[in-house]
């Protein structure tokens, strides 16, 4: 992971500030940096989103392709995740350097989405046992500025919200062979319900307090973090401890409460932005990569 070198004095400065609920950039312990979300930025995809959280820049593209359902779930479609750490983020990611981080992120995403209430995968089925929609969710890390998991989960939720899957009809002829017909109207499509898609909130323990949305510098001062997956209703679906340090059970319960609180607010703001983009429709001015 991209890391920054801090002197002892800088670390002490950051830690002491956080004890007083004052971070280096003036935020409180439970404040996020300014988040920019934009959907539909890549035209070759079924859905896409770009999220900029401070210096962290994530681009997610979702491609819907026809595939065969998995043997254990013949009536469902499925999601496949892939993470690419671009060398632009840090030269350490050149070649196969980013694979470790990518695997960690992919595994976390699979864990979050393994819950059957997250996405209605039954709606992705076309012909049981024969055809289904496979959603390939590809995450591209353009820049690392701390708090990767949060930004990635926001981008994945936004991209899934933006995904438009073409409507298909199954035609069966007398011999019983099935044919799949794509709708003539390119705007005829099904959308996904992302109300139950959780967002990841990472809480980093610094000193005796914990902070939300740590920058690279704050992550360097933190020995342990708790990664929580929170739905819009405040339900915790997944929890993971990161880092070399240890956490005592008291702190874990406190962090869980903070995570749930912050998570609900994050979901409300995100949904507001997504609905606003949706309501503007084609009149929306796209910033894309010029901003």
């Amino acid at each position: 992971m991209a890391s920054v070198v801090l002197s002892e004095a800088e670390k002490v400065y950051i830690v002491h500030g956080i004890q007083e609920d004052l971070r280096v950039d003036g935020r409180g312990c439970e404040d996020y940096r300014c988040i920019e979300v934009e959907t539909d930025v890549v035209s070759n995809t079924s859905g896409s989103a770009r999220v900029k959280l401070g210096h962290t820049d994530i681009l997610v593209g979702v491609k819907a392709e026809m595939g065969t359902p998995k043997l254990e779930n013949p009536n469902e479609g499925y999601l496949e995740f892939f993470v690419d750490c671009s060398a632009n983020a840090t030269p350490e990611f050149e070649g196969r350097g980013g694979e470790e981080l990518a695997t960690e992120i992919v595994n976390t995403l699979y864990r979050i989405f393994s819950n059957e209430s997250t996405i209605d995968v039954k709606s992705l089925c076309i012909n049981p046992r024969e055809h289904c929609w496979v959603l390939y969710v590809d995450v591209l890390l353009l820049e690392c500025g701390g708090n990767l998991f949060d930004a990635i989960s926001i981008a994945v939720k936004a991209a899934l919200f933006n995904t438009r899957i073409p409507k298909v009809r199954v035609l069966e002829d007398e011999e019983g062979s099935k044919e799949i017909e794509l709708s003539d109207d390119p705007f005829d499509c099904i959308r996904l319900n992302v109300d139950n898609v959780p967002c990841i909130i990472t809480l980093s323990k610094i000193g005796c307090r914990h902070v939300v949305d740590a920058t690279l510098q704050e992550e360097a001062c933190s020995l342990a973090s708790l990664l929580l997956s929170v739905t819009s209703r405040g339900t915790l679906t997944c929890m993971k401890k990161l880092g070399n340090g240890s956490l005592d059970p008291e702190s874990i319960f406190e962090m869980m409460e903070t995570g749930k609180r912050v998570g609900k607010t994050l979901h409300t703001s995100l949904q507001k932005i997504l609905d606003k983009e949706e309501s503007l429709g084609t009149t929306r001015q796209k910033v894309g990569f010029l901003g």
Partner: protein
Amino acid sequence: SPHFPPLENPGVRALQRQVACEPHRVTPVCWQMRGSRSKALHDRALVNCQYSMATFSTGERKRRPHGDRKSSEMTLHLKQTFEAAILTQLYPRSQIDIYVQILQADGGNYCACVNAATLATIDAGIPMRDYVCASSAGFIEDTPLADLNYVEEAAGGPQVALALLPKSDQIALLEMNSRLHEDHLEQVIEAASKACKDVYAVLDQVVRDHVHEVTTLLGE
């Protein structure tokens, strides 16, 4: 050893507006420049490139972003092009990394990379002999076409990729696919050269505007 200015914002986002047919088609490319001191040559700088395509950049999903044959070939071409253009003798025992990331592909990938990399090199303050401007060209229905898009490339006709140093009219890279009668070659190269010069005009204007803005903000 040379000192490279610290990069607060290491990503330089350069957009290429494809000249000719449809000026609103854009192939966005992001990349980064930095200097480091690992295993370099004694008399000049090492230019290290990586060409990577996002898996969702093409119409059909790409399974590997980089490391496959096509990407390795592009990486090598970029390296050769920029080793020719950058004044590497000024930075012995150093390494210059150029990482190009294709976010959306609609034809002319290599050319967009070269143009973006030129702008980023200039932004990084690394001295070059000249701008390197690239454009593709093809020959369809007895007409030379400049800057082919994906549909035109997929049609299977001859394609020429040309990287040019516009002031001296020197060719840094010339590549051709498929079959083209030699009588037509000159027209096609002519079309590509003209497109390169048009791109040069745009890039030059962008650089001048940016420098003007920066110096005004610095109050000089």
